C-alpha cells in the first residue's frame, strides 16, 4: 500500500511536470525573454560595466561573469515559478487538480521538477552564449558536471521558494512586483557582478554569506574561473559545502511552507 502510494505520487508528479513543460513552447515569449534578459546582462556587464570593474590579479572579467550570470538566471526563474503558480491558482487549474484523486504532493513536486528541467534548458543556451564571449571551463568533465549539478540543485530550492511565494501572494501582478523586489537585491548584493572586496565593510559579510554568492563561488571554483575572495573563512574557503548547507536549510524552510500553503487552500 505504502509502495503504491509512493509510485502514484511519482507518476502524478511526472504527469504534472509533463503538463508544465508542454506549456513552454506554447508560450515561447516566456523562455525567449528569460534567455534574452540573461544575454542582455552578459552584454551589459561584459562590454559596458566590466571595464570599470577591476578584478584582483587582473583576471578575465568575462570568465568571472558567466558563473554569476548562470546563478542569477536561476534566481530570477523563481519569479517564473511563482507566477506559474498564481496563474494556475487564479485560472482554477489548482481547484481542478484538488478535485481529482491524485497524489496531493504532485502539484508541487511536478512544478518544482519541471522548473528544474526548464532551467536546465535555459542554462544550455546561456552556456553557449558564454562560450561565444570567451568564457571557458578549465577543469575536468566531472567538475564541470558537478557545477551544473549544483546549479540545478539550487534551481530546485528556488522553485520551492517560488511555489510558496506564488501561493502566498495569489495574484499574478503582485507576484511579479514582489518577486523582483526580493530577487534583484538578492543577486546584486553578492559576488555575481562585482568582487565582494569592493563593498563597504558593513555590507561585505552579507554579500559573502548570501547563498547566491556561495553558489557562484562554488561554480567558479569547480570550473577554474576567477574567484577572488578577500576574507578567509567558510564562504571563501568552502563555497561548495556552504552552497549545500544553504540548499538543505532553504529546502527545510520553504518546502514545508509551500506544502502548508497548498493545504490551507481548503480553509
Amino acid at each position: 500500500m505504502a509502495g503504491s502510494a509512493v509510485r502514484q505520487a511519482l507518476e502524478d508528479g511526472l504527469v504534472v511536470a509533463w503538463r508544465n513543460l508542454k506549456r513552454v513552447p506554447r508560450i515561447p515569449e516566456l523562455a525567449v525573454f528569460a534567455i534574452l534578459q540573461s544575454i542582455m546582462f552578459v552584454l551589459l556587464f561584459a562590454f559596458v560595466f566590466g571595464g570599470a570593474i577591476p578584478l584582483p590579479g587582473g583576471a578575465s572579467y568575462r570568465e568571472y561573469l558567466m558563473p554569476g550570470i548562470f546563478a542569477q538566471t536561476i534566481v530570477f526563474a523563481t519569479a517564473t515559478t511563482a507566477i506559474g503558480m498564481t496563474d494556475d491558482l487564479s485560472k482554477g487549474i489548482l481547484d481542478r487538480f484538488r478535485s481529482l484523486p491524485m497524489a496531493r504532493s504532485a502539484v508541487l513536486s511536478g512544478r518544482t521538477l519541471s522548473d528544474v528541467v526548464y532551467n536546465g534548458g535555459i542554462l544550455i543556451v546561456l552556456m553557449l552564449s558564454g562560450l561565444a564571449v570567451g568564457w571557458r571551463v578549465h577543469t575536468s568533465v566531472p567538475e564541470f558536471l558537478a557545477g551544473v549539478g549544483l546549479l540545478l540543485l539550487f534551481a530546485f530550492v528556488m522553485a520551492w521558494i517560488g511555489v510558496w511565494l506564488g501561493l502566498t501572494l495569489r495574484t499574478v501582478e503582485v507576484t511579479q512586483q514582489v518577486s523582483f523586489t526580493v530577487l534583484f537585491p538578492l543577486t546584486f548584493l553578492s559576488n555575481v557582478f562585482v568582487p565582494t572586496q569592493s563593498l563597504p565593510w558593513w555590507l561585505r559579510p552579507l554579500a559573502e554569506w548570501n547563498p547566491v554568492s556561495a553558489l557562484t563561488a562554488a561554480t567558479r571554483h569547480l570550473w577554474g574561473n576567477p574567484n577572488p575572495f578577500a576574507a578567509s573563512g567558510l564562504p571563501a574557503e568552502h563555497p561548495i559545502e556552504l552552497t549545500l548547507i544553504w540548499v538543505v536549510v532553504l529546502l527545510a524552510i520553504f518546502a514545508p511552507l509551500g506544502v502548508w500553503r497548498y493545504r490551507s487552500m481548503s480553509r
Partner: protein
Amino acid sequence: MSAIVAEGLVKIYRSRKSEVRALDGLDLTVAEGTVLGLLGPNGAGKTTTVRILATLLRPDSGRATVGGLDVVHQAQQIRRLIGLSGQYAAVDENLTGRENLWLFGRLYQLPSAEARRRADDLLEQFELADAADRVVKTYSGGMRRRLDLASALTGRPRILFLDEPTTGLDPRGRLGMWDVIRGLVDEGVTLLLTTQYLEEADALANTIAVVDHGRIIARGTSDELKAQVGGERIEVVVHTRDDIARAIVVLTAGMDGDHTIDEHMRKITVPARGGAQRLAHVVRELDDAQIGIDDIALRRPTLDDVFLSLTGHAAEVAAASGASDGR
C-alpha cells in the same frame, strides 16, 4: 439512498476588515440518480456549497457526505467518485483539448493508453473531435465549457457537480449545454447544478432548492415553486394613461389575485391562470372594449419573482459577493 447529504453547513470567510457568512446552516439532500438545481443570486452561497461538497473547502461547522463518505475525513475517496465543472472554466488554455483530457484522465489514475482512449471518446461525444489538437485558447466559450465538462467526466464519475454551467454562454451554446447535461442524467449520474436562472433549473432539475444568504429558503419541484410564486402573468402596456382603469376591469374580470400597475410605463401586470388561452381571451376583450395597447406579453416567473414572493426582496446581486463567492 441519498447520494449527497449536507446538514447545517456553515462557512465564514474572514478577512482583516470583515466577516462574510457565506453559508449559514445549509441543509440539502440529493437522491441517487436525480438532479438538484441550486437556485440563487450571486453571493447566495451556491459556489461555496459546491466547493465544500467537492472537497475543495472545509466547512466551519456542519457535516456533509457524498456517496456516503464524509467530505472532511474521506475526501480522497470522494474524489474518485465525483466530477467537478466550475464556474470558471478550469482547463489549461495552453494545452490542446486532447492533452487536457489525457492529463485529467491520468490524474484520475487511468493508465496512459486508457486515458488516451477516454479522451478520444469524450472529444467525439462532445463534438470537439475537429478541434481536438488545437490549443484551448482558440476555442469559443461554448467549446471551452464543453471541454470543461468533458474533463470532469474522464473518471466516469457517479456524482457530478456543475457550478453555473451556462453562465456567459449565448442562447445557442446554452441549449447545446442543456442537451449534453440531459444526456448525462439519462445515463444515471447524480447531478447537483447551480444556476441563477429559474428557466435552467426548470429545464434540467427534478428538484429545485432556492438559496439566499447561505440558507435554503424553499425547495420543491419547479411546478411547486411556480405555484408558490403565482405562475405566469400577463403584462399589458396600454396606449394612453386614461385607459388604465378600464383595462384593469377587463383584465381582472373573473380572476382573483393581485394586479400591479406601473402608471409611468402604463404597464399593468395580472396573474394568468390558463396561460396562453387566457392571453388570447384578454386580447379579444381589450379589442372589443376598444382599448389601444402598445404591448402585451405572457411572462414566466423569473428568479426575481421567486425571490420577491419568498423573501419580499428582489434577488439583489450582493455587492460584497466577490469575496464570498468563488474564493
